[in-house]
């Protein structure tokens, strides 16, 4: 395993042979910086950034919108 520059704090040490499922699925060519460890880190970070928003409470405006749409629909039926 080659030397890594200044590893980021808190970065887990993983088995070099570990590959993420979707990396294997596309026949991920391993070259240079595309090590499995970094790709797994990317996958985790992607989901973390996404999930942070997904876990936010639904803004009232959308609840109101759906309720309005529903009642308008019922009103005209």
């Amino acid at each position, binding site marked *: 395993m080659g030397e890594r520059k200044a590893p980021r704090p808190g970065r887990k040490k993983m088995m070099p042979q570990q590959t993420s499922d979707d990396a294997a699925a596309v026949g991920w060519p391993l070259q240079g910086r595309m090590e499995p460890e970094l790709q797994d*880190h990317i996958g985790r970070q*992607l989901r973390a*950034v*996404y999930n942070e928003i997904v876990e936010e409470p639904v803004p009232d405006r*959308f609840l109101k919108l759906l309720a309005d749409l529903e009642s308008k629909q019922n009103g005209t039926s």
Partner: protein
Amino acid sequence: MIAPSDPKAGMLAAIPKLRAFAISLCGRTAAADDLVQETLMRAWANLDSFEPGSNLVAWLYTILRNEFYSEFRKSKREVPDSDGEYAARLTSRPAQEGHMEFLDFRAALAKLAPDHREALVLVGASGLSYEDAAQICGCAVGTMKSRVNRARGKLAELLSEPTDARSVMSVGRGVTADAS
């Protein structure tokens, strides 16, 4: 949970995911929630064209994406210059001696080309299949796989290289060459 035959309940449940996709397109702006609002209204009006049992989230994402590229682009309510914004935030910090800085993940994500970032958000973040993502974006499955591949490679590159005044990643914003 959600009955498969109840797309309305499905729409409510999908709002957090819609917000996440909208924010990935528009940034954390009012435009993102406006986009979600517009999407919900369109979806509601077109519920009869939704095929029951098919992937509701993928269907909603398609509407959202089309709305973004048609209306929101036209009215110039686009993605804020997140690329320049992040680069400026980085280069304005004083470089400390011996301290290597790396782009944080969000900054690196913001630097990707829009279609690459979108591919990663759909496949890597929201967990859609390549097929669903390709359909949403109106491209071939092979194209989607290739975008995801390239996006991951570019991200890896951006995250691995330390940022300094001489870095080629800096957007030309008058970076002062006083680092190390």
